């Protein structure tokens, strides 16, 4: 209620003020038309009196001011034309000082002053000096600021700058600078004074009003930046020190922040670079509540862009030791502002790091230094808990990763892991993931064991349990994601040189072994396959003198896969043992291959009890064994015997049957020197047939109808397979017999019609027909089979 009342009042007062101006302006215009100086002065003074109000907020006062401003322009034109009013400008200057109240008096004086300077009847600097001093007469903040703003506006194009018409014997750039600096100082003093007036509850309103006025003060800095005669030396010697003096001494938080920011924006980056020490020197002297880090960040941002847009200035950066100065300044600021929250300090380091990466990307020592400063700041403190601070640390650590697409560069920063140590375990893991993601995105490759060591130190939060981890933080999906990341990164650790590659593998192994049972199923497979790839590369090389030999690697593999027994993960371990067995076979290492098969078989016997798992495992065993050719007769027989033995013990009849006929392939290898034991093959097939029969009978008994004939058709196909391959033990008569058996089974009373097995049988018969029609040797073979 009160606020809207107040606003309504203000509107009313503004309207009154405007009305007053318009009223007096009307009469003033009449006087101007009549060339009546006295009257013109009288009414203009009255008009200007409206600006004496203290009831308006800056926003509204500005509206009033603009009206007055417009009227004063007309008055100025009148003053200029001496023939109209017959008064010399010097006399005019005297005359207006007779106005009753000081504010109108000074506005008129400034207006005449403008004409006076233009007439060149007095040295510019004298007029300017007089005006800037006279304005001291108005000490009310709002009125004073607008008055001096008026002065600044009308004097702007009349400053004795180099090349300006107002430059002369006595009038130099220095005078222009003096004038603007003085006006600026006075304006700042007025502005700052606003804070001190009024009770505490009005302070918010005050701050808002102050902000509305700030551009009036800042404009002076703009003007200074436009003065052409100010070169670097003048800026360095006079302009900057004076501005900073005012900024520091006013001891006002709002003013200091705004003016530092303004200063950085309006003056050229080149100047900032050359006056860095002075500029930075002011920072610790500012009020402790000033958000100096934003100011410094702005500065560093500007300097970075400067460096980016003009690479030729880079030597300058080095010459002025920009990095060192900024680094020291930041350190000082953090030290002086003792109660700056940690997030503030880290944000500063992030800004400095960004600067460093943009301006001096090749100076890894600088980058490391920034990280080191951060480490120092974080030392002797408990682990970070503030999430904003943590975010900033993550930003700090991510910056080098983004800049250097080659992860190895970031790995050389000695302080990098030390910063990571200060993160809480959750964030540490997140950061580790960021690192891995960066490696994957950039398709980087880490190719030395040393660097791998550093990398795994960095990501140790993912590799093993660290103290500080709490048990209930473990979300399964997150954990799996983490571990899959680790698994992926293992594949980008690579070196062409086998010796170095083996070192890498050993380093990785060392680390993942500390991971515990939960992590091993994720991390062991990629390591195993990495090692197998290395073995393949070495396969054709001989020589036990090399540090890297397949034998040594196989030993390593054995120990590694063994660790899976602690998880336990028997199915995975079995698969990996079989992979190794096959690889050992390719290397011609019979004992090694035998050992791996043994390990696999032991696992099968002792650990794999689930039926479905057994079926898969057996097919993997048979598939692998079928391909191995390194074994002598005895070893092969032992293993084959075991495999067929396992097949025989499968629970479900169909599984049993299929495994048995799969075993037939153990006795027939299509290679040149492959085993081709026709009799054993037939034995397997016959056994399979018996099992299929038994299955049918069981079904009859248990369910009242026999099962589908699928198994018989499968066995028929196997008969055909070996028949074609030239196994003399398989006769066309046997095949014929099987065909008839199937037909009978399908037509029997107890048969359950099954579309799938019917189609299968039809396809098979069609195949036989196709072979018969082939002609030649094949056609002859199949000739005796009737379908």
């Amino acid at each position: 209620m009160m606020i809207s009342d107040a606003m309504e009042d203000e509107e009313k007062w503004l309207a009154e003020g405007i009305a007053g101006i318009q009223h007096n302006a009307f009469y003033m215009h009449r006087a101007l038309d009549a060339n009546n100086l006295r009257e013109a002065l009288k009414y203009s003074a009255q008009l200007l009196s409206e600006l004496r109000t203290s009831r308006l907020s800056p926003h509204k006062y500005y509206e009033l001011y603009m009206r007055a401003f417009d009227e004063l322009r007309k008055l100025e034109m009148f003053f200029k034309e001496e023939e109209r009013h017959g008064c010399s400008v010097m006399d005019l200057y005297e005359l207006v000082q007779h106005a009753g109240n000081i504010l109108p008096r000074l506005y008129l004086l400034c207006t005449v002053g403008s004409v006076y300077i233009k007439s060149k009847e007095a040295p510019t600097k004298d007029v300017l000096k007089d005006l800037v001093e006279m304005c001291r007469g108005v000490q009310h903040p709002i009125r004073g600021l607008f008055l001096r703003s008026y002065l600044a506006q009308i004097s702007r194009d009349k400053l004795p700058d180099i090349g300006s018409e107002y430059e002369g014997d006595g009038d130099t750039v220095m005078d222009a600078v003096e004038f603007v600096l003085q006006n600026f100082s006075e304006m700042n003093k007025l502005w700052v004074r606003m804070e001190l007036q009024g009770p505490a509850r009005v302070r918010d309103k005050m701050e808002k009003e102050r902000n509305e006025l700030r551009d009036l003060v800042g404009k002076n800095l703009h003007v200074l930046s436009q003065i052409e005669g100010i070169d670097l030396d003048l800026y360095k010697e006079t302009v900057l020190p004076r501005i900073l003096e005012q900024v520091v001494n006013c001891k006002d938080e709002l003013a200091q922040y705004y003016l530092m920011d303004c200063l950085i924006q309006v003056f050229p980056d080149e100047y900032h670079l050359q006056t860095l020490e002075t500029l930075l020197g002011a920072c610790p002297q500012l009020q402790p509540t000033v958000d100096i880090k934003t100011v410094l960040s702005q500065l560093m941002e500007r300097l970075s862009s400067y460096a980016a847009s003009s690479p030729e200035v880079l030597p300058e950066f080095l010459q002025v030791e920009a990095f060192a100065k900024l680094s020291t300044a930041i350190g000082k600021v953090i030290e002086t502002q003792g109660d700056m929250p940690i997030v503030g300090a880290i944000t500063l380091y992030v800004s400095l790091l960004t600067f460093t990466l943009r301006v001096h990307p090749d100076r890894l020592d600088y980058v490391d230094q920034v990280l080191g400063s951060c480490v120092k700041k974080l030392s002797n403190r408990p682990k970070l808990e503030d999430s904003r601070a943590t975010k900033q640390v993550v930003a700090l650590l991510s910056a080098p990763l983004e800049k250097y697409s080659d992860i190895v560069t970031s790995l050389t920063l000695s302080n990098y892991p030390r910063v990571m140590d200060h993160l809480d375990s959750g964030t540490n893991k997140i950061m580790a993931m960021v690192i891995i993601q960066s490696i994957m995105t950039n398709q980087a490759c880490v190719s030395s064991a040393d660097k791998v060591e550093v990398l795994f130190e960095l990501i140790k939060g993912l590799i093993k349990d660290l103290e500080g981890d709490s048990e209930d933080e473990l979300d399964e999906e997150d954990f799996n994601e983490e571990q899959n990341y680790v698994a992926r990164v293992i594949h980008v650790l690579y070196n062409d040189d086998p010796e170095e590659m083996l070192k890498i593998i050993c380093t990785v192994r060392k680390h993942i072994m500390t991971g515990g049972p939960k992590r091993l199923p994720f991390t062991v497979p990629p390591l195993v396959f990495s090692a197998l790839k290395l073995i393949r590369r070495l396969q054709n090389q001989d020589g036990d003198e090399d540090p890297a030999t397949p034998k040594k690697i196989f030993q390593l593999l054995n120990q590694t896969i063994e660790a899976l027994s602690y998880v336990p993960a028997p199915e995975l371990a079995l698969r990996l043992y079989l992979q190794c067995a096959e690889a050992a076979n390719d290397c011609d290492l019979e004992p090694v291959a035998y050992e791996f098969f043994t390990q696999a078989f032991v696992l099968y016997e002792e650990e794999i009890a689930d039926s479905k798992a057994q079926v898969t495992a057996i097919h993997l065993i048979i598939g692998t064994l079928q391909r191995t050719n390194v074994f002598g007769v005895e070893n092969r027989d032992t293993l084959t015997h075991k495999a067929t033995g396992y097949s025989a013990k499968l629970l479900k009849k169909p599984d049993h049957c299929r495994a048995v006929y799969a075993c037939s392939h153990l006795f027939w290898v299509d290679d040149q020197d492959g085993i081709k034991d026709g009799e054993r093959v037939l034995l397997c097939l016959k056994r399979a047939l018996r099992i299929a029969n038994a299955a049918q009978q069981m079904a009859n008994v248990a369910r009242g109808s026999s099962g589908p004939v699928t198994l018989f058709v499968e066995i028929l196909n196997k008969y055909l397979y070996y028949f074609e391959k030239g196994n003399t033990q398989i006769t066309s008569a046997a095949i014929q017999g099987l065909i008839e058996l199937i037909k009978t089974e399908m037509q029997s009373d107890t048969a359950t019609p099954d579309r799938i097995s019917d189609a299968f049988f039809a396809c098979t018969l069609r195949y036989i027909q196709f072979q018969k029609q082939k002609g030649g040797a094949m056609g002859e073979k199949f000739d005796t089979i009737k379908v």
Partner: protein
Amino acid sequence: MVLVLAIGDLHIPHRAPDLPAKFKSMLVPGKIQHIICTGNLCIKEVHDYLKSLCPSLHVTRGEYDEDSRYPETKTITIGQFKLGLCHGHQVVPWGDLDSLAMLQRQLDVDILVSGHTHQFKAYKHEAGVVINPGSATGAYSSVTYDVNPSFVLMDIDGLRVVVYVYELIDGEVKVDKIDFKKTSTATI
């Protein structure tokens, strides 16, 4: 014209970190109508990625797959063709064409897609066509040496299927194509 992507044996993250970048940029969502995957993805992320390319995703179980609920075999009808899918570790001897032919007859399909050996194959025999899309990541295989990353795209149009094989050889994607025609509605 129906586009079917046949892909498999990625072995992520056991044997490979990711699909090759060149393949990833080629496989964009919305272009393919079906995906048939031979198996050994191995993790859910890969399943989700394939699903994002095309909602009609069919997967059979490889021996390293994290999800044990994928079926051992699958048959799908697309247009005039019946397709069969199976990883292939179950068919001994591994990669043996005649044994695969038996599986094809058993499933009664025109096209059998099977993997495990990581070696691209596409050939025609009495019962139909057998396609092995190879390994999309070029993963290590005990069976095949020097595996190049590969996958297959089938364009099924009426009674004709054009099989495009994409192989990454020395950093470049090479494409080859093979035509197969089916006679009427009987199998090829």
